[in-house]
């Protein structure tokens, strides 16, 4: 019995209800719940580092009949990232939404989305995961529509339709699994699963649903408009957390549950889609005319990198080499989460000050908003993958492992993607440091700029220099010394 595991779900949910019944105290309820969830996630992280895996049988019923919550290194580290990003973005939201009415609308939905994210990361049960996907999708769509513009509403409706299609595909797969194996618990299922027609069709359906939700090329078509038209704090969470939740599930299903039913060819297909996403997303980001659209296309590319890890992981023999690569994958996901949310918050600050986010007209930003420009630069370093960011270590490890596994194809893809990322980041910085008066006089704006700065620092400095901790957390009993630069 480990009730600690329920807290990251219960606390934001409670905060959401309090914000709903006391709309005038919504800010306090929201920030209080965010801080509490962060503390709980920190405790879970510390416990996972000591004991490897935590489990809570909700309601006291054994998994199978009941639902189990589980935390291992992967879910605990993503949980920690989620609570931190949510806290920073929530803090920024209190200045982003000037009207109290907007904040009263924002907080309950925002906290429901966080509840769903945490429930998804901790769930050990396939049907329960479907419920969390529905909650996540609905809350995310409602938040994306909060801007209220025509473009935002249209993007939100498309996001809703695509998301429902993904959930339904996932649910159909879950139904087939239950019909065949008589259990929904992922650990029990991993022990029973066989390479059979029902398993393949179910896994294909579940994966297809999750690929739509994680916006892997060519199912990314809904993401740029939805992420670019949402309010900035919401965009940050959508890009950094919501998309990644679907990727987390793909990883969980492919590596932990259905590994016996997989072939290298299917993993190779995921890798190819990931490679196309890297090239296409980076190219579109380079061509984007608006800062938030650039950030959204950059997410398409970065999700592509995450999928590149899968064929290499499956081709690597279990052991130290695979643990190293797995740690690198988690490090990549965490760094992208922090850097992309920082980038979106920075874009939000610029949008507020300048009234637009057209990249070509950003001249003078460096002088007017030095802190925010610094944030964009720091986040950009992590998006490109320059040292000392975590992305640098992760890409290095990915390339090393790809060469060791004989999968040479990914090397030029990573190289081209990195060069394009450099191009799109420096295009933004070039304009920002250029002459111009577009953004107005110089001003430091602590409450709006500080959350983004903290996130960018975590992405570039903390995760890069403290990367060894990620491996210790993700790989039980790993030797952090084994990680070489």
């Amino acid at each position, binding site marked *: 019995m480990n009730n600690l595991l329920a807290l990251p779900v219960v606390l934001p949910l409670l905060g959401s209800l309090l914000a709903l019944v006391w709309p005038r105290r919504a800010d306090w309820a929201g920030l209080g719940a965010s801080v509490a969830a962060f503390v709980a996630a920190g405790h879970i992280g510390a416990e996972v580092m000591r004991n490897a895996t935590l489990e809570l049988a909700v309601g006291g019923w054994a998994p199978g009949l009941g639902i189990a919550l589980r935390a291992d290194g992967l879910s605990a580290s993503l949980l920690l990232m989620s609570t931190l990003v949510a806290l920073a973005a929530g803090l920024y939201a209190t200045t982003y939404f000037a009207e109290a009415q907007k904040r009263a609308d924002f907080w309950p939905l925002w906290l429901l989305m966080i509840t769903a994210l945490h429930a998804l990361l901790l769930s050990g049960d396939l049907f329960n995961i479907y419920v969390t996907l529905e*909650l996540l999708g609905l809350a995310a769509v409602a938040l994306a529509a909060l801007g209220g513009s025509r473009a935002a509403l249209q993007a939100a409706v498309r996001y809703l339709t695509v998301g429902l299609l993904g959930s339904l595909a996932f649910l159909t797969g879950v139904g087939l699994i239950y019909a065949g194996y008589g259990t929904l618990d992922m650990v029990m299922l991993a022990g029973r699963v066989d390479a*059979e027609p029902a398993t393949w069709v179910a896994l294909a359906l579940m994966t297809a649903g999750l690929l739509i939700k994680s916006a892997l090329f060519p199912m990314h078509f809904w993401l740029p408009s939805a992420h670019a038209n949402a309010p900035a704090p919401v965009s940050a969470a959508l890009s950094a957390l919501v998309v990644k939740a679907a990727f987390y599930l793909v990883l969980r299903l492919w590596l932990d549950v259905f590994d016996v039913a997989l072939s290298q060819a299917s993993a190779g297909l995921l890798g190819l889609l990931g490679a196309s996403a890297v090239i296409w997303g980076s190219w579109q980001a380079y061509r984007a005319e608006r800062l938030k659209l650039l950030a959204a296309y950059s997410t398409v590319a970065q999700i592509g990198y995450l999928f590149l890890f899968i064929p290499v992981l499956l081709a690597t023999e279990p052991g130290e080499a695979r643990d190293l690569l797995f740690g690198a994958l988690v490090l990549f996901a965490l760094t992208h989460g922090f850097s992309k949310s920082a980038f979106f918050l920075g874009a939000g600050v610029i949008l507020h000050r300048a009234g637009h986010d057209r990249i070509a007209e950003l001249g003078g930003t460096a002088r007017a908003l030095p802190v925010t420009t610094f944030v964009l630069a720091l986040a950009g370093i992590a998006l490109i993958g320059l040292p000392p960011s975590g992305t640098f270590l992760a890409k290095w490890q990915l390339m090393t492992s790809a060469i060791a596994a004989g999968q040479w194809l990914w090397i030029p893809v990573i190289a081209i993607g990195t060069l394009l990322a450099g191009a799109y980041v420096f295009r933004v910085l070039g304009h920002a440091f250029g002459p111009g008066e577009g953004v107005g006089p110089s001003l430091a704006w602590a409450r709006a700029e500080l959350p983004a700065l903290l996130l960018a620092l975590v992405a570039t400095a903390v995760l890069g220099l403290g990367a060894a901790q990620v491996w210790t957390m993700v790989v039980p009993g790993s030797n952090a010394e084994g990680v070489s630069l």
Partner: protein
Amino acid sequence: MNPLLWMLLDLLLAAMLLGLGWAAVATRDLKRGLALFIAFGLLLALAWARLRAPDLALAEAAIGAGIAGALLLAALRSEPQDGQPAAAPSRVFLLTLNLFSVLLAVAIAWALLSALAMGDGVRLAQAVTEHLSQSGVSNPVTAVLLNFRAYDTLLELAVILSAVLGVLALGPARPGYRLPGPVLYGLIRWLVPLLIVTGGYLLWVGAHAPGGAFQAGATLAAAAVLLRLGGVDAAGLPAAVVSRWLLAAGLLAFLAVGLLVTAFGYGFVQYPPDLAAGLILVIESAATLSIAVALALAYIGGWPSRRAQSGSLHTHTTEGGTH
């Protein structure tokens, strides 16, 4: 009735389901498609009943056909009426889509047949029956929803809440309907109290027979829909301050019970066996109110205006009166 007749009835039901489903999808007239969809939902409820799943049949009739139909009709009403049906998609696109759907259906059917052949067919039903006596209720469906998998239900209530909050964040409610003619007026005066009593009955009976919070909430919401159709703009909902509490009540009660038991050494949402029946009733009662208010607000499309709250159908009753 003899088995052959049942078989014929089932075949007829299946054929009609397929026909209605196809007709609802194929028509380009939204209103027509919607009417067919509601009929489809009612027949689907019959199919569930034939499969001896009366809980599902009730839920399908009340929520799938009833409330969902009302919500869709309300959405259609606010659609701009320019009279132009949507442009037809290209033939090639339709053909590809249909081919893909057929292939997918074949793959799923094949996988389902092979999956059904794999297990013993019992799955979790046996475990539920074995533990039913410890659950506090004797209806296995309620035992699963409110005890064994109560955590799912907790999150499902949050799903409903998030959908309604999304609707509410989009803006104020549309204006309501005109006052009804004498026939509708008389009908509403009879039906609303009846629906409220039925809702209370469904809630209570859920412990040992088909029923429960979702069906009861949908029935109460149906009363609200009728009131709104009868010209009561606020649909019988109390003031916004109270409605907010009612909206949150189900989840608040669920969380309060779930957390309170941990103070006595139990796990999260682990009911002490001898208190389980009472705790489940508390949660279900609060959840019924929340579901009813959520569905009613979704039907109205926003918080009812202040002026609307004073409107009444002479002696209309609020949902609060059931408990």
